[in-house]
């Protein structure tokens, strides 16, 4: 794993929860959308929060696909879950939201899980091609 690859994983970790949060903030400002007024959704897409949220989620998906081309799914998913911790800590120290003891335990568990998985190998090497049975014996 190179520094650049850790950076891509960092982008996956941060953009997903931040994008979701921006979409949530934007939609809360707009209020409930009824089936009779679906045009409100088109207006929603033009608001700064939703636009930025969509841009972040596009960044997330591109980085997620790139990371899956050189790392295992069971490495990428737990490793990038640290983004949830970033968002919770931002909410605590920037927005001054209260974090319950249960949530602190959640932060601790996610951080420990990320620590476990990133200590191990990131990619399972697969054999390129199956050897033809008997080929080795005939060569020797």
């Amino acid at each position: 794993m190179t520094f650049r690859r850790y950076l891509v994983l960092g982008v996956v970790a941060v953009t997903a929860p931040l994008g979701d949060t921006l979409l949530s903030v934007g939609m809360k400002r707009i209020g409930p959308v009824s089936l009779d007024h679906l045009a409100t959704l088109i207006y929603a897409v033009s608001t700064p929060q939703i636009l930025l949220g969509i841009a972040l989620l596009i960044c997330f998906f591109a980085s997620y696909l790139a990371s899956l081309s050189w790392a295992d799914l069971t490495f990428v998913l737990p490793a990038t879950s640290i983004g949830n911790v970033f968002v919770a800590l931002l909410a605590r120290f920037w927005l001054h939201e209260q974090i319950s003891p249960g949530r602190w335990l959640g932060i601790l568990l996610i951080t420990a899980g990320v620590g476990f998985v990133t200590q191990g190998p990131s990619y399972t090497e697969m054999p390129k091609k199956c050897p033809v049975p008997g080929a080795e014996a005939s060569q020797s």
Partner: protein
Amino acid sequence: MSILTPGNGFADAAMIAAIVIFATVGDVLIAAAMRGIGDLDEIKAKSGLSGAILAVLSNGRFLSGVFFMGLSFFSLLFALSHADLSLVAPASASLTFVTNAVAAKIFLKENVDRRRWIAALFVCAGVALLAR
């Protein structure tokens, strides 16, 4: 009384199961597609950004994966209109870590060793606690 009344345990479990299953199938198909395509950085170096995008968008497994992710998203929207957010969001987000680990071991033949199982279980519990 509708079967989808909030608080109906069976209906809640079925809706959460649908989200988790579709998300897992989508994730595994996309991961299989990316493994098959190979390192995107190398493809980008050889064929440029457009070549890398074309390699991804023309892959059948990738498109099927996106289809299942879409099904998972709409299942989530459907579930949110019938069940409590505080149940559906953490339950589906956290369970997906475990089902993905099982599916990746079986279908992608990933080396899910003890370290990865522990990470999946810790993150599963952590996300459930954090998202409540």
